[in-house]
């Protein structure tokens, strides 16, 4: 009886160990399966985006690709001249010369050296027709998101007497400066890509600091993970949005954000 009980216990242990291995294997395979499905969907999304870009560039007459550099320069200048025809402040970004400029009626009113930048591989792969379809004319900003207020505006009730007026003045003076702000903003363009601009005061900061501003990166990551599950469950392709990330001095990142109108024109040379 005693011996049997020991055997039962041993066999139970073996069975349980086998079941545990089985469950672990199922979990691992599930994770790998989900990851593979999502990878497949993500790559399909990139290719779809590239097809869209290529379709948009269809129909343009062919040219000698040896003249691409000159044509790019010409398109850049033409685009800036088109931008100058408007009454609003526009933005020109020359990633070759590492310059970002605010322009108004063709006059450069702010010029800032880009400290650090990166672009999606999508842009590195484009040339010819696709490049000109994307950057040949001014882009229009569709949406702004920023870590600081774009148009800060206070609403004040008129003071009842001179004592209240003085108190209001004192309170306004006491208000701290904007030194500790993390300046980050993101814009969506009318041509299916986004640009992120972060304010930094050194290159080390660009690489180590908040990168996408306080809270921005966490919110974005969480959204990506949640979305990935939704896409897997529905077997739909996630959207692929090529991006440009530019790091410039903090005060200039802020000044540019506040200077640009909501539907600002932007000219880019990559």
């Amino acid at each position: 009886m005693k011996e049997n009980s020991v055997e039962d216990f041993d066999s139970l242990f073996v069975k349980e160990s086998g079941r545990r291995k089985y469950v672990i294997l199922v979990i691992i395979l599930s994770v790998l399966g989900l990851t593979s499905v999502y990878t497949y969907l993500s790559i399909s999304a990139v290719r779809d985006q590239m097809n869209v870009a290529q379709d948009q560039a269809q129909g343009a007459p062919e040219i000698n690709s040896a003249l691409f550099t000159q044509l790019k320069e010409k398109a850049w200048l033409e685009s800036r001249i088109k931008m100058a025809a408007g009454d609003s402040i526009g933005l020109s970004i020359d990633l070759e010369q590492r310059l970002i400029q605010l322009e108004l009626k063709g006059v450069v009113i702010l010029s800032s050296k880009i400290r650090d930048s990166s672009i999606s591989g999508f842009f590195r792969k484009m040339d010819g027709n696709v490049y000109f379809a994307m950057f040949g004319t001014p882009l229009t900003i569709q949406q702004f998101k920023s870590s600081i207020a774009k148009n800060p505006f206070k609403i004040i009730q008129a003071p009842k007497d001179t004592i209240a007026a003085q108190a209001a003045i004192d309170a306004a003076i006491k208000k701290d400066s904007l030194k500790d702000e993390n300046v980050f903003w993101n814009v969506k363009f009318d041509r299916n890509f986004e640009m992120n601009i972060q304010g930094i005061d050194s290159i080390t900061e660009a690489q180590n600091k908040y990168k996408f501003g306080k809270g921005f990166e966490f919110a974005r990551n969480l959204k990506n993970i949640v979305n990935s599950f939704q896409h897997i469950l529905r077997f739909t392709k996630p959207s692929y949005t090529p991006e440009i990330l530019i790091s410039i001095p903090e005060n200039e990142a802020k000044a540019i954000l506040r200077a640009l109108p909501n539907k600002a024109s932007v000219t880019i040379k990559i």
Partner: protein
Amino acid sequence: MIRNFFIYLAVLVVGILFFASMVLFVIPAFQESTVALVGLSSGSSGSGEEGKDKASIEADISKLEKKLDSFTPTNAYIVVNTTDNHFFLYKGKKLIRDGMCSTGKNEKLISAEGENTFYTPKGVRKVLRKQPDPIWTKPDWAFKEEGLRVPSARDPSRYEKGTLGKYKLELGNGYMIHGTIYKRFMGQSVTHGCIRLLDADLEAVYKTMEVGSKVYIY
């Protein structure tokens, strides 16, 4: 049983972390790799420049550069940064002076009589009129803001000498470039929309800018 539960939980957590890291780092990197990015590059390219040679495109570029250059005024103009409260005085493309200024405080003042909005409008303006020793005619909002009763239109309390400094340059719609007696606020967004300068800067701007000179505000 409990031991198994923790083992499964640990494997599940590792799996979730693995999946999250794939979604956040590995798959985006993979999307950027040449495996995903195929077929966008085209051997020949087009932008309506068929038949043009290098020399003619370079001549076009030169013309376009000249055209773009012609937009910059050759006489004096001023650029005002309302975020940093800084001005830049140029003659042609040469910066001849820069310094602190004060611009609009971006406020809406609400009173029983209505609303007043205080901000420096962005865009381009021209100097419409220049005047030394200006007298400030205080508008209604100046009284409301100080918690005072608004006097009649020609009341003597409306006229103040010295408040606007030694000079004013009118930009239209009541906006001006002028001096200030509140020098401690220089560099801050405290005005009702005008651009305030320190005395020496104001003098330089007044003497350099002419009627018709452009004022670029961003």
